[in-house]
């Protein structure tokens, strides 16, 4: 219709944050379950945790932190009208995301190869708490991985928009919101990492 294109960056950012709150609470439900079952099965959770590869987990943490840095720097670059730099940094972010997913894939397939996956015979035979631990692990990292994927696609789309000039140094709210989403993905991982990989 003929709305004179109405722009409200503060409003857009407010909307994005509100959406991030919902994401936070979505994962909150899983953290709630984690807390309850950790209380009930501290031992099984500890043995479950030792079976995860903390080196790969740490590597992924570093990768995600780096990707977050790139995303934040991309925004800074865009605000300074350095379009090429911004696109390069976004490329780096997406590259990190891909690295993250590869490592995740390696981890998951190792676990599944050992017969550890939700509903597997191996877990059914083991102590109950352990099957809970791994079910939660797969759900949390799975849903988180899905968010990594969505975030990467979002950033790629924004890169295209920067290239076409639609998103630029004077109109960067889209990138700002995209970066916010990406940081949220990082934020969630900051909690998943110690809870699943380190508490043993």
């Amino acid at each position: 219709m003929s709305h004179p294109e109405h722009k409200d960056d503060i409003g857009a950012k407010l909307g994005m944050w509100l959406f991030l709150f919902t994401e936070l609470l979505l994962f909150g439900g899983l953290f709630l379950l984690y807390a309850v079952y950790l209380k009930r099965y501290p031992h099984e959770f500890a043995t479950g945790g030792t079976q995860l590869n903390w080196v790969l987990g740490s590597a992924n943490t570093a990768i995600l932190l780096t990707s977050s840095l790139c995303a934040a720097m991309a925004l800074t670059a865009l605000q300074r009208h350095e379009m090429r730099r911004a696109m390069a940094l976004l490329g780096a972010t997406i590259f990190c995301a891909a690295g993250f997913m590869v490592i995740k894939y390696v981890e998951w397939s190792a676990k599944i190869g050992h017969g550890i996956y939700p509903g597997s015979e191996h877990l059914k035979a083991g102590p109950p708490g352990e099957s809970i631990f791994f079910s939660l692990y797969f759900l949390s990292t799975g849903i988180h991985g899905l968010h990594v994927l969505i975030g990467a696609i979002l950033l790629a789309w924004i890169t295209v928009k920067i290239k076409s000039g639609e998103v630029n140094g004077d109109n960067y709210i889209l990138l700002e919101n995209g970066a916010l989403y990406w940081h949220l993905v990082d934020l969630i991982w900051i909690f998943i990492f110690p809870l699943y990989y380190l508490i043993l």
Partner: protein
Amino acid sequence: MSEQHIVSNKKLTCIWLILLVLTTLTVAITRVDLGGYKVFGALTIACVKAGLVIAVFMHMKYEGKLLRWLLFLALVTLAIFIGLTFFDVLYR
């Protein structure tokens, strides 16, 4: 238009370094035997890290009061959901 605030690359890099150090620290303290404090320590560090990401990477430090309050509200809500559930879990 929102008032533009540009965070310098230097600052971002600094924060990134701190985050990496904190990650190493978390790994380190969970390798030594601290008993129940381990969970506590690891989560405290995670909260600090999250705070840094929110404040600097996500520019919360430069936002107005409103967003901060709302973020606080969301976090408190989550805390309450978990907290009240524990009235059941702890006393069953």
